């Protein structure tokens, strides 16, 4: 397996928090200004470290939400019984410092040099690294056709809703709501299943590249179905999150 990834030492740096925007009741996007950011690829993540007054520290990884070459941002969902995400979503304010290092990861990344139709499939906050890819595609002037199939519980749980509504040329955003649908909802209802995937994903004959991100059970089911639809496993890149 060949790669051009550069192995460099990742050092911690204190980034300035320049803004915090609420995406949903439990999700915020945090814009950051690190003193020395080496740049990143769409789909990578970074590590955050919090330090208590007695020196206790807690670290977690978060997907990068911004495209390369725009202001660095992460989008964080508050996890019940979480340790770092409740702090980031409720306590952190613009003007604070946040320690981070990165970028990390190099497999779950999309680069505009890839001319395959792009199939993005997200469950919940799994949309974050895929949003970085969509923004990168737009900013890079790529004309690769892209589809995003995005599963949320309810309409108010849809992250980046306004932004996703505005993607026009070459991007089709397909939403499904699993728990409840507002009156007049014209999108899909219920969990992503075989029939929904068969209707919405690029046919395997077009040699698409798929990125699937979400909770473990979601990713397992989607990846399995894509294989059933003829996607070769090496064309399905996955990122799962589970636990706390």
């Amino acid at each position, binding site marked *: *397996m060949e790669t051009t990834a550069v192995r460099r030492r990742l050092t911690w740096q204190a980034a300035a928090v320049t803004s915090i925007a609420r995406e949903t009741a439990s999700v915020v996007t945090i814009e950051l200004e690190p003193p020395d950011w080496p740049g990143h690829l769409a789909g990578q993540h970074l590590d955050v470290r919090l330090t208590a007054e007695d020196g206790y520290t807690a670290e977690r990884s978060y997907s990068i939400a911004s495209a390369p070459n725009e202001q660095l941002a992460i989008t964080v969902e508050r996890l019940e019984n979480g340790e770092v995400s409740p702090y980031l979503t409720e306590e952190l304010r613009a003007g604070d410092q946040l320690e981070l290092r990165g970028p990390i990861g190099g497999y779950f990344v999309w680069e505009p040099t890839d001319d395959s139709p792009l199939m993005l499939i997200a469950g919940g906050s799994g949309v974050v690294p895929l949003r970085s890819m969509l923004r990168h595609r737009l900013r890079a002037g790529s004309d690769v056709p892209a589809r995003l199939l995005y599963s949320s519980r309810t309409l108010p749980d849809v992250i980046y809703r306004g932004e996703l509504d505005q993607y026009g040329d070459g991007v089709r955003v397909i939403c499904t709501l699993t728990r409840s649908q507002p009156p007049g909802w014209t999108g899909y209802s219920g969990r992503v299943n075989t029939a929904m995937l068969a209707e919405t994903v690029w046919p395997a004959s077009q040699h698409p590249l798929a990125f699937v991100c979400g909770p473990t059970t979601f990713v397992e089911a989607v*990846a399995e179905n894509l294989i059933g639809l003829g996607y070769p496993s090496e064309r399905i890149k996955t990122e799962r999150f589970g636990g*706390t």
Partner: protein
Amino acid sequence: MSPVSRGFRGRSRVPAEEEDRVPPGQHVTKDFPVLSAGPTPHTPLPEWTFSITQGGDTLKSWTWRELQALPAETVTVDIHCVTRWSKLGTQWRGVPVDTLLDQVAADAPYVLAFCDGGYTTNLPTEDVTGGRAWVAFGYDGEPLPPEHGGPARLLVPHLYFWKSAKWVRGLELRDHDAPGFWETYGYHMYGDPWKQQRYAGD
């Protein structure tokens, strides 16, 4: 010295009685999270083999049935994922890697574990011998589920868990250390959780 995060007190401090079991920067989870780069492979057991190779030659290969016929051990170990969760007291069943390596005449200072799906990871041979590593096919009294690496995964609990390669199909004996899958993408070549060797240079 890290700057203090205003208003952060920390909720997941490790209790004193578990302190010597949880490496720095880790927190204990009761879940068993799943992290993989691609779809879960499903190799039918009649086609499954475990091989030890060197320089492109297969030195020895076991079918599923042959592997099951070897003496297996039940071990209870703590595991530590580089994404910062640790799980204490996990129970596995598997064949010690010593038992497999003892059946080939060759020796080498490093191994590269190879797997269904193309995943690889590199380890010093001394870390997979001496009773410190297993080819595990049972978890918690049941067959190892596919999403956790079944039918069989490497189990090397004293290193970060990405070294415990899922869906393992064999070991390549190597004279020189070469990065595996995650190591190529900037993860540490060795991965000692007690030294927090998460990424290259740590």
